[in-house]
């Protein structure tokens, strides 16, 4: 077993190899990760956690690359976690986000790490945010997490970020209505990327009109809507401004409480499931539920110790 404490110390001291190995340990759920978490969170330097999500191919990685250029110019050290899905059949993955970020190869102040989702049910968000905390402790700020915007786990990652950027393309057309609910739920900033293509401004206007006409009670600040061309950097300074500006809003007490609530809910759910499945009576109760001798809710309550 690798001792993780020296790895954390090394990462905090700026050793890239230690940082990389610690990320591997966290990703793999190595022994010792659980014990490391308190010191890991204590070592936080308060990095801005930024989630970048959106449909496949919308230009997220290219945009992260362009944002990193702007942030580097502003003297920031940028940590990037690029998450790609694992194949549910083989467990393998191809992670190609790095190709779009080669502009920063050789810059020691940009750290890019590719992570496969590894298909753990709901585990992705947990692991990713521990990894983000490591980059924070290592002195990277902002820490950016890129995920493909499909599926529940990605929405959850977005919920755990302080600032979530949703990247769309001009051709979204009829999807606008479908996107609406999801967007409102998670987006702090909406980007219409590929601004060099026809219809980008129109799409941005439609989004603005749509979001301003939403009925009901909205507790969130409506998202900023911007247009970028990630390939040549047009609009990316303004996007970096919008992200940086949102940091303060994200740290207002009510937002911080909301995020803490989400973090706790996720951790509690994970711990609850782990406790239940590790319970000596798990198999017995599974059988009992299968044979309808007990209902699943009562069984679950017993497994987490709410009922004897």
């Amino acid at each position: 077993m690798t001792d993780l404490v020296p790895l954390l110390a090394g990462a905090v001291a700026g050793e890239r190899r230690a940082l990389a190995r610690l990320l591997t340990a966290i990703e793999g759920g190595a022994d010792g990760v659980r014990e490391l978490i308190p010191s890991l969170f204590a070592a936080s330097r308060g990095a801005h956690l930024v989630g970048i999500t959106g449909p496949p191919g919308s230009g997220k990685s290219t945009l992260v690359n362009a944002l990193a250029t702007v942030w580097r110019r502003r003297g920031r050290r940028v940590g990037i976690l690029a998450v790609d899905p694992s194949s549910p059949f083989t467990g393998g993955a191809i992670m190609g986000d790095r190709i779009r970020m080669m502009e920063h190869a050789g810059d020691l102040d940009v750290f890019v790490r590719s992570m496969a989702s590894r298909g753990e049910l709901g585990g992705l968000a947990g692991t990713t945010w521990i990894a983000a905390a490591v980059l924070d402790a290592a002195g990277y700020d902002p820490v950016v997490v890129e995920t493909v915007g499909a599926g529940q786990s990605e929405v959850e990652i977005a919920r755990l970020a302080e600032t979530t950027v949703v990247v769309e393309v001009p051709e979204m057309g009829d999807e606008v209505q479908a996107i609406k609910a999801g967007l409102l739920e998670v987006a702090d900033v909406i980007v219409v990327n590929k601004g060099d293509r026809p219809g980008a401004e129109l799409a941005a206007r439609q989004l603005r009109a749509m979001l301003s006409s939403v009925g009901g009670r909205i507790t969130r600040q409506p998202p900023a809507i911007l247009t970028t061309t990630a390939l040549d950097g047009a609009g990316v300074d303004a996007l970096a401004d919008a992200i940086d500006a949102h940091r303060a809003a994200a740290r207002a007490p009510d937002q911080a409480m909301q995020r803490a609530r989400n973090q706790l809910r996720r951790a509690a759910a994970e711990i609850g499931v782990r406790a239940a499945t590790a319970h000596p009576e798990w198999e017995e109760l599974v059988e009992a539920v299968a044979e309808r001798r007990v209902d699943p809710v009562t069984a679950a309550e017993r497994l987490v110790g709410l009922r004897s």
Partner: protein
Amino acid sequence: MTENERTTPIRVLIAKPGLDGHDRGAKVLARGLRDEGFEVIYTGLRQTPEMIADAAEQEDVDVIGMSILSGAHMTLLPRVAELCRERGMDDVLIAAGGIIPDADVTKLKAIGIGEVFGPGTSIGQIARYFREHARRSA
């Protein structure tokens, strides 16, 4: 940890050093290895040894696989091996694919390149070699 106990996928960096050509072969290999259960980090064309070593370090890969067509293999491949050693990545398996004369293959193996796969090597063979020779534990 022994081989059989390894619970996480082997991480492989696939890169194409040198200035030449296309990356069709490298992409086919990347997909093939994905289908064999590897986690493949694909970094594309025109990589310098420094870029490859940087990426391998950040990604903490178990294997670096380089596809090389140009005649520059005797400078590029040793340089990658040297950079890996300098950075304490002695345990990273380095392999190359391409048309490389036998005499050079012998020299490359002597300086830390694990294996050189000639044209026509199947992805299954490469996968087996990686599984057998990649470092074991995280």
